Every structure is written in structure tokens, then in C-alpha cells.
């Protein structure tokens, strides 16, 4: 998963990650490690002090995005639907939601302004991937004439990787992770999506990248996501 994220970030100059998203964070730190010397990548982890070079307060993240200086961002959603709409507020009828989540954070803005918004959810189920979200925190696409340089770019789950087709306003299955099948994806996804006739398997990282993840990247992650990297180290097969 971390290697797949790094792949999605290729060519980015500046990637921003929320504080509480360790897997995307690890993917970004790996991508930075792999970035060519003449095109270095900056990774900003919001809320952290070490991995964050913003000096104008919380608003700078959004100004920076609006200036076109952020290439990729990660968003998730309590619900995500087939048009790329995301719901971070709750289910049932608003505002007295039956289930209330924290809130939309910066989604309604970054989803418009950042070119590669990568959606990432660790639960692949019909509960999460619904046909129509109950509340649109941030719309997947916008009507003609609306200023929108950015939007959903991909959706990564434990089962598979989707691309988002802006014109068609639909997701398109790019690959299924090793050990999982297209049927399994279809069974657990509540919205319709396109797929190629032959759906490839998500490539596993080459040995050198794997070593890199388990080595230097792991240390860097530990510094920002101590708990996460400890769990990962435990889960690694004994080297």
C-alpha cells in the first residue's frame, strides 16, 4: 500500500498529509526518498512541528494550495460515492445525524484546489462506498464555469486502486491488490464503476523499494507516527 501511494505521488514537488494519516504519510516519505535530485519533493505533515515548514499559521496550507503550490493531498470519508462526493459529517438527515462524525475539515476547499487529491480508506465495504452520500462535504466534480483546478485523482483501499475519470464522473478500477479479486471488489462496493476487460494485479514493490520502506523510511515514519511504525515493525515477517 505504501509503495502504491509513493507511485501515485511521482513527479509531485509538494505533498501535504494530515497529521492523523500514517499510511499516506509513510507513502509520501517514501516518494520523497525516491524523488530525483533535480526535482526534490517537499512533504508537509500538518500539525507536526518537525515535518512542517509552514510559518504563517494554519491558513498557509490553504493559501499555498490556492497558489497552486500543493500538488497532492490525502482525503478520506465516512462515505464516498460513485461520483466522488465525500461525506465527513454524518449519516441520516442533517443536522441531527443518527451518526455524527467529526466534520468536513478542509475538504470543501482542497478538493477544488489541489490537482491530485488521493482518497484513502482502510475499510472497503458497502457501508463506506455508497451509491449516494447522505451529506456532500465536498463534491467529486463541479458544474461548468466553476473555478476548479483540482479534484479526486485516485481511490486506494485495502482491496484495490481506482482512478477517477473527471469527464465521466465515475471511478475506473485500475488494479486489484495481490490476494484479492475483481468480484470481491464488486461485492463490497455500493456504487457502479468502470473496469478494463483484463484487470491487472497491483504491482508489489521491487526488492530494493521494499528494503527502503523497511529501513530508512521506517525510521523517518517513526519520528512522525511513532505508534504506527511500531505496529508495522511488529507486523513485518522476521527479516
Amino acid at each position, binding site marked *: 500500500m505504501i509503495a502504491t501511494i509513493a507511485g501515485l505521488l511521482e513527479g509531485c514537488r509538494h505533498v501535504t498529509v494530515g*497529521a*492523523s494519516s500514517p499510511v499516506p504519510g509513510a507513502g509520501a516519505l517514501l516518494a520523497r526518498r525516491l524523488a530525483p535530485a533535480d526535482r526534490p519533493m517537499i512533504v508537509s505533515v500538518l*500539525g507536526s*512541528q*518537525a515535518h512542517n515548514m*509552514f*510559518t*504563517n*499559521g*494554519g*491558513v*498557509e496550507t*490553504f493559501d499555498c494550495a*490556492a497558489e497552486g503550490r500543493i500538488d497532492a493531498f490525502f482525503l478520506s470519508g465516512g462515505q464516498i460515492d460513485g461520483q466522488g462526493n465525500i461525506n*465527513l*459529517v*454524518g449519516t441520516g438527515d*442533517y*443536522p*441531527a*445525524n*443518527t451518526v*455524527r*462524525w*467529526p*466534520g*468536513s*475539515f*478542509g*475538504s*470543501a*476547499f*482542497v*478538493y*477544488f*484546489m489541489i490537482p491530485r487529491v488521493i482518497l484513502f480508506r482502510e475499510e472497503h465495504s458497502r457501508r463506506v462506498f455508497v451509491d449516494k452520500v447522505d*451529506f*456532500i*462535504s*465536498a*463534491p467529486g466534480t*463541479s*458544474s461548468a*464555469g*466553476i*473555478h*476548479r483546478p483540482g479534484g479526486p485523482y485516485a481511490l486506494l483501499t485495502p482491496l484495490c486502486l481506482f482512478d477517477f475519470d473527471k469527464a465521466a464522473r465515475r471511478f475506473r478500477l485500475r488494479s486489484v491488490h495481490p490476494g484479492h479479486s475483481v468480484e470481491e471488489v464488486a461485492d463490497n462496493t455500493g456504487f457502479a464503476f468502470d473496469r478494463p476487460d483484463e484487470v491487472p494485479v497491483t504491482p508489489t514493490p521491487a526488492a530494493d523499494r521494499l528494503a527502503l520502506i523497511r529501513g530508512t523510511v521506517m525510521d523517518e515514519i517513526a519520528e512522525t507516527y*511513532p*505508534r504506527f511504525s511500531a505496529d508495522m515493525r511488529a507486523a513485518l515477517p522476521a527479516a
Partner: protein
Amino acid sequence: MSGKIAKVEALAEQVRDGTRLALPVDYGGVPMALTRAIVARGARDLDLVCVPISGLQADMLIAAGCVRSIETSAVTLGEFGPAPAFTRAVRDGRIALKDATCPAIYAGLQAAEKGIPFMPIRGILESDILANRPDWQVIDNPFAADGNPDPIVLIPAIQPDIAVFHAPLADRDGNVWIGRRRELMTMAHAAKHSLVTVERVVDGNLFENEELAAGVIPTLYVDAVAEAVHGAWPLNLWDRYPIDEAAMRAYIACARDGTADDMRRLAAKAVPPQPYPAAAE
């Protein structure tokens, strides 16, 4: 010089019922000692403005029945899970809710900071956030090329009555050092008054050191400062001292299962442990 240095309780007295109160983000320096004093004082009908999200502070105020309404982009206890009192109050409809998105709250505060009635902002169009905010407006961009309306959202100015936050350092004149936490400066500029707790009040003037001065909120914007060692406890203060996980769990239990009185009692007796727990790892 001026008598701006006061006790935490005196600051809490200034937060009268019905105050529009601006709160900082959890990792930004939250004045929990002052918040407990506000709860202990029995404040009511507070209109909270989270800059741009809140957690323990908003949830405790809600749990203790001090809150009438809340404007926020999110309320969460982060890795400790959802904010129990907020979630329950929203579902029961006990508090008025103004859902926003982070840059919209900054835009509203910056409008008040600049004395303008509104601030334009990109994005947000065709979202249910906008649909549920009758106080926001949409106009066509007057500078757009012909034939393209280019709609844009306008956020009305947000002028809190009082901004409260916690910082490492202040001097006796009331100048407060906030380093890179400029959202605290935006709050202080936008609000009519600012009440600040700090780890340490020092003699001398922070402006004497040009490097320090770059991260200072001048006393011009600060009404009163109170010294409160570990004033953010049980939350962390930047990377200076860590979050107290045990105290957070105790809070969650009380907020989820207890009554407003239970929360007032918890707030009244909660005091940072001595010696302060080292970093979790």
C-alpha cells in the same frame, strides 16, 4: 507597566454568559486551565468559534452545559476517538451547529481583522456545507471575463468577543510569544478582546530581541495574561510537553457517561500531576 497580569480565575470571570468565544486547534496551545475555570464559574450560552477545529476544549464546555452554539470545521479527540459530548449534543439537537470548512473560518476571521464585511473564498460551491449556511453568500466574480459568471462564495466577517489561547511565554507588559502559531495572532486581531495563559511570565520586553519579536502578539491586542504552568494539560503544548493519555481516558469516561454536574466536578478538581508524565514513548 500596565496591570495586565492576572490570575486564571480573573480571566474566567471576564468570559460572561453569551460570549462569542474563539478556541484554538488542539495542537496549537489550548488554555485548558482557563477552560476548567470557565466551567467552574458556570458560564452559560457560549457561542464557540473553533479556529478552525477543536477537541477536548469544546467537548468539555459542551459536556458541562456551557455552550449555546458552535461554529467549527470539526470536533474530534484525534487518536482518542470521537468527541463524546459534541456527538451527543448534535444528535439531541441541544446545541446550534454551524458546520464550516477550515479556510472559511480563517476567511471570516481575516475579514474581521481587516475591518471588511466579508472575504471571498474559492471552492465550497455545490456542497451541503454551503447549502446549510444561509449566512454565507455566492456572487458572480465582478472581475470575471465576459460570458463567464465565475461564481464565488463570500464569507461574512467573524468577530469573536473574546479569543482565548495558551502560549509558552509572555512579558509583564502583556506581549505574548507564539512562534509559528500565527492562527493565534489572527484570532487576537479579529477578536475584540484576548485572554491568554502562558507557561511563564518574564520580566523585560520581548521586543528587545528582534528574533523573538517576529513571533510576538503585541500587548495592544492582549487584555490580560495569567501564568499557568502546564496550562494546556492534559493536552500537549506543541512539542514541549506531551498529552496525558490517562487523564484523556478519564475525561472521555466522564463525558460519555456522566452528567453536566459530573463534568463540572471533574473540571473543578483536575490539576496537572506532579511530576508531569514524560512523553508517551
